[in-house]
């Protein structure tokens, strides 16, 4: 047992004595290893971001918002920088606001979505801790910015849709007004033609009435002639008187019909004639034109009135 303990003590002491300190050169190598340069150069990335932002700002100041957005998106796609993606989204939204374009506003969502993808990934355990692409901005702030962008897009789209709806309503009202005006502006002579037509109709009806009166009168006359001669007190006298009065009434009807036919046909024809004349005159007025044509040694001016 003592022998065993002695061996163990010896082994321990030997072990302690053989522990060697790292040589100075090895120490330097270890320190170098510890201070390993990160694979993502934050300073260079910040410089690239600033360069892209400056270029985009210059383009935007020159009125080229789409060009500015393209520059930002290209730079963002190279590095995956969510800040540049959000800048691009803002620039596209600015263009949409200027152009009042819903499509452009919708297009501004995608860079903001990509920014959100990157930002959520940066908070994921699978992200490379050296890849500090959003620095110096906290990801939470940038996520808020992206979500606010989406809200701004919704607001702008609602605003543009309201404007378009108002414009449509105004256009419809204007169109309606034009139609009503057109309705009110009848062709010249229309009134006369309508009155003439109505009067001619009355005249034709008068002819009918006159014809009916003549037929009735003829029948009554034949009846009277059959019963004559009769004197008051004769058994046929009431029938004679009845036929006589019917004959007189038929004559009156025929006279009234003839008068109506005469007035109606003559008046109607006159008014129709005047209406046609007026319409023709109106057409000629519409077709009046002046024309010019080159001619030998000058210009010929002509017109149609």
């Amino acid at each position, binding site marked *: 047992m003592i022998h065993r303990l002695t061996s163990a003590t010896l082994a321990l002491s030997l072990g302690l004595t053989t522990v060697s300190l790292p040589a100075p050169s090895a120490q330097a190598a270890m320190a170098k290893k510890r201070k390993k340069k990160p694979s993502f150069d934050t300073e260079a990335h910040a410089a690239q971001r600033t360069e892209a932002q400056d270029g985009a700002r210059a383009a935007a100041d020159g009125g080229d918002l789409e060009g500015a957005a393209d520059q930002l998106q290209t730079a963002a*796609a190279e590095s995956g920088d969510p800040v540049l993606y959000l800048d691009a989204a803002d620039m596209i939204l600015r263009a949409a606001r200027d152009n009042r374009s819903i499509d452009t506003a919708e297009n501004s969502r995608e860079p903001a979505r990509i920014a959100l993808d990157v930002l*959520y*990934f940066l908070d*994921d355990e699978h992200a490379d801790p050296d890849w500090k692409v959003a620095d110096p901005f906290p990801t939470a702030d940038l996520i808020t910015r992206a979500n606010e962008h989406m809200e701004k897009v919704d607001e702008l789209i609602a605003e543009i849709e309201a404007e378009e709806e108002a414009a449509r309503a105004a256009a419809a009202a204007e169109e309606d007004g034009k139609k009503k005006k057109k309705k009110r502006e009848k062709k010249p002579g229309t009134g006369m033609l309508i009155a003439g037509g109505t009067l001619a109709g009355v005249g034709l009806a008068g002819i009918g009435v006159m014809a009916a009166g003549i037929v009735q009168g003829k029948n009554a006359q034949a009846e009277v002639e059959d019963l004559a001669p009769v004197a008051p007190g004769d058994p046929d006298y009431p029938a004679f008187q009845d036929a006589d009065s019917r004959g007189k009434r038929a004559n009156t009807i025929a006279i009234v019909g003839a008068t109506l036919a005469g007035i109606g046909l003559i008046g109607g024809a006159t008014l129709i004639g005047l209406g046609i004349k007026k319409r023709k005159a109106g057409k000629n007025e519409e077709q009046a034109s002046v024309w010019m044509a080159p001619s030998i040694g000058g210009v010929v001016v002509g017109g149609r009135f």
Partner: protein
Amino acid sequence: MTRIKTAFTGAALAAALTAPTPASAFAEATVEGCEEDLCLADGGNGKWKPDTRMSKKEKRKYRRRRGETSSLSLDVEGGRGTVFLDGRFLGVAPLSSVEIKPGPHDLQVRDGENVLAQGVLVASKKGGDLEATVTGG
């Protein structure tokens, strides 16, 4: 004593099943075709291991990769997504002909907070085309 041993073996087995697959498993149990949220086109140029990630050791091992680069094309079926390779931004789907080094790569495709595909994509040392479709879009 026997009981304790059995309990320990059970715990180790459970831990092995729940823990992410170790990097050494890349050589085996690799899958071509569709697996969970990602499909690889036939051609034998790559393998997909869903829901796994490379260990630090594996990352160190594959820092210097030898072999032909592969050309990765990736699309998200019926949606959109941003692709992250080895912990960094690769691009926005659809991606076409992006050169990737041979060996395993951590791949994640996400749409905002929603992770569409996550796993290890192994590119063949022979190179060639790698066509992937994310089906979780």
